[in-house]
């Protein structure tokens, strides 16, 4: 039972937490605490909880941000060497405006600020966010064997600016509805929604009615579309060639300003081809339409890639170290709720088929390739994997559509007992392998993060993810799109065990609550688990075979 003085103490404590205690009350509280040490514990607990709640309820997960900063390998930069001194001077001078509500947020702002100044060290670039589409006017819809000058990966969203496709095929959709087909080498400027300048190379454009007036310029000609499908090339010495597949275009000299509907140009009609020389010297010619990039050329090329992967996949399935291999092909009579999915590993581990629960069948990497989507909280593929794994390679092709600040499952064991792996995209936007341990502290020391995904590849595109665990070397390696993307040494290592697990979701939150559901906001169209530690070369080959 609570005594009178307990009640009095509670009241004083409450006043103090709310900042309303006076010095008489404080002296009394001190006296009451000296009488009973439990009251002192109660006092410190209430204040600590009050601080925790303030931080916790502020919606911004500041502590996670801090974890992220702490986990950043870029903390090694010379800039951060002076960070503490910088922080100290600014804090003591109080010259910074305290724009953030809490002191913690302010401290973080200060800490992060110096990094904003150095592009390579931007912490902001590591934060989860969707593909940066601000200012974009077009998107890359499809591409094959494409290599872009100055980029290691295909671009996703395209802002106005130079676009140089060195080789391969690309299909670009401008937001006004124009579809452009590019075949490398092609060098152009995306100027605006309705204007492209072609420096060199060939493009084909399909212009819908709402985009009439779409203009392509070259060194020698301005082409204004009047509702059509056309191709244009810019060649050396100012020579341009135009072919109209459908409809009509008007050609104007390059130096004629303000071309519009009132000033008829040189019309080119359906089926006609024209060459334009430097002084707007036009002449009828015969062009082979097949010389220009087209939808069918891209489709053919993509289909060839798929075929190549199919052959590779059939060989791969014969590997003796393969434990799980799902390609999610043949979604035969897909039932809405439950479906077996064949484990292609051969010989298959005894009861190791997967069961698709929910998980709609969707388009995969290529037309004709099937994927499973995990967009709904119930979607999952259940698997059971017996045995111990001193070495383990996990790999998949996934399209993650959003980094949403929650963990997203790739493969999660139902429980998180010691030496069970949790392979997921962590809420801070990295590929992460967690390993269960007897205590949370030990488990924390076992977390292995990769580089931020969106620093390597745009979110919303198909990407290849691979993680290799090796208990002999006590190491975890991550790979994103075939490139090494993280290396972690573990304090200790033992064989991993999996048991019952899920691809694309986690069973646990359903039974326990209190955790955001971890379904993957995206799709997977190939998933594999091997009982060996593949090296960088093997991962690269896997990526090349499937890209």
């Amino acid at each position, binding site marked *: 039972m609570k005594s009178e003085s307990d009640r009095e103490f509670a009241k004083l404590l*409450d006043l*103090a*937490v709310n*900042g309303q*205690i006076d*010095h008489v009350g*404080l002296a009394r509280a*001190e006296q009451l*605490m000296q009488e009973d040490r439990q009251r*002192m*514990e109660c*006092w*410190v*607990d*209430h*204040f*600590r*909880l009050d*601080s*925790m*709640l*303030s*931080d*916790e*309820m502020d919606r911004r997960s*500041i*502590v996670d941000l801090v974890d992220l900063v*702490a986990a*950043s*390998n*870029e*903390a*090694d930069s010379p800039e*951060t*060497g*002076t*960070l*503490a001194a910088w*922080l100290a001077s600014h*804090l003591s001078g*109080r010259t910074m405006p305290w724009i953030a509500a809490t*002191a*913690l947020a302010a*401290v973080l702002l200060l*800490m992060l600020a110096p990094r904003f100044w150095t592009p390579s060290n931007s912490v902001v670039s590591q934060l989860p966010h969707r593909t940066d589409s601000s200012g974009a006017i077009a998107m890359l819809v499809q591409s094959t064997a494409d290599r872009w000058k100055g980029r290691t990966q295909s671009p996703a969203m395209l802002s106005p600016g130079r676009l140089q496709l060195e080789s391969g095929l690309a299909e670009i959709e401008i937001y006004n509805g124009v579809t452009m087909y590019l075949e490398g080498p092609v060098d152009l400027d995306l100027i605006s929604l309705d204007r492209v300048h072609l420096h060199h190379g060939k493009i084909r454009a399909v212009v819908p009615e709402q985009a009439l007036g779409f203009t392509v310029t070259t060194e020698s000609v301005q082409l204004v579309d009047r509702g059509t499908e056309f191709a244009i090339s810019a060649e050396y010495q100012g020579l341009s060639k135009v072919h109209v597949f459908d409809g009509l275009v008007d050609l104007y000299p390059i130096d004629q300003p303000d071309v519009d509907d009132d000033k008829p140009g040189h019309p080119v009609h359906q089926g006609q081809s024209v060459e334009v020389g430097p002084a707007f010297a036009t002449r009828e010619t015969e062009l082979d339409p097949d010389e220009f990039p087209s939808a069918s050329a891209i489709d053919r090329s993509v289909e060839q890639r798929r075929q190549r992967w199919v052959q590779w996949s059939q060989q791969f399935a014969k590997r003796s170290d393969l434990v799980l291999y799902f390609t999610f092909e043949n979604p035969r009579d897909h039932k809405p709720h439950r479906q077996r999915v064949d484990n292609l590993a051969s010989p298959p581990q005894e009861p190791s088929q997967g069961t698709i629960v929910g998980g709609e069948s969707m388009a995969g990497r290529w037309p004709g390739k099937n994927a499973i989507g995990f967009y709904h909280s119930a979607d999952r593929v259940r698997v059971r994997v017996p045995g111990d794994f001193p070495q383990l390679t996990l790999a998949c092709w996934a399209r993650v559509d959003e980094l949403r600040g929650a963990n997203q499952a790739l493969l999660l064991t139902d429980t998180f007992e010691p030496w069970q792996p949790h392979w997921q995209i962590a809420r801070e936007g*990295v590929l992460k392998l967690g390993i269960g341990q007897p205590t*949370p*502290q030990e488990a924390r020391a076992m977390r292995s993060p990769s*580089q931020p995904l969106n*620093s*390597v590849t745009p979110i919303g595109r198909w990407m290849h993810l691979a993680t290799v665990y090796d208990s002999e070397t006590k190491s975890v390696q*991550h790979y994103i799109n075939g*490139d*090494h993307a*993280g*290396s972690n*040494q573990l304090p200790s290592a033992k064989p991993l065990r999996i048991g019952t697990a899920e691809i694309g979701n986690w069973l646990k939150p359903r039974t326990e*609550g*209190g*955790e955001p559901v971890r379904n993957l906001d995206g799709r997977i169209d190939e998933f594999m688990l091997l009982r060996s530690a593949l090296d960088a070369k093997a991962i690269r080959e896997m990526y090349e075979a499937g890209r």
Partner: protein
Amino acid sequence: MKPGNNEQKGVDAEVVALIAQHQSRLRGLLRCMIAGHADVDDLLQEVNVVICQKADTFEIGTDFWAWASQIARYKVMERGRTFARSRLVFDDSFLDELAEVATQRASGFDEQRDALRRCLQNLPPAQRALIEMRYASERTIGSIASEMDRPAGSIRQTLYRIRGLLIQCIQNRLGDLA
């Protein structure tokens, strides 16, 4: 691209990260020592500055919390000496004892925070809403009371009780883990 190797951190950056990680518990510590003072945020910044200045004396890998809380303690006592005796400060010897208890009870802070998150999830909706009004929207008790058309005292008591429940819940959860 550089791999994300956890072992390649600059020492200073690590200290900065540690400071940030410990803000919440530092603030809790300061508040319980200078209860009633509104300027806890200023004091916290001063403590941060001292921690930065002394960062080179801190050995990475040793107990940062023990080290930082010591600095916070000194800072509070230093401030106390500049006040007249009648101001809102505990006795020095009592402060020392209080800080000892507070430091020790915040040592498993990360686990406590994880437990708190789960406990918050399990709060009945009405209690959760009240906590959110107070902490997420930073509303004063007076403004919550007038919106809910209830006496401020009753809101305050309810909040106090919920905090007590949360502390109990955290302790239960951590006890279960052990």
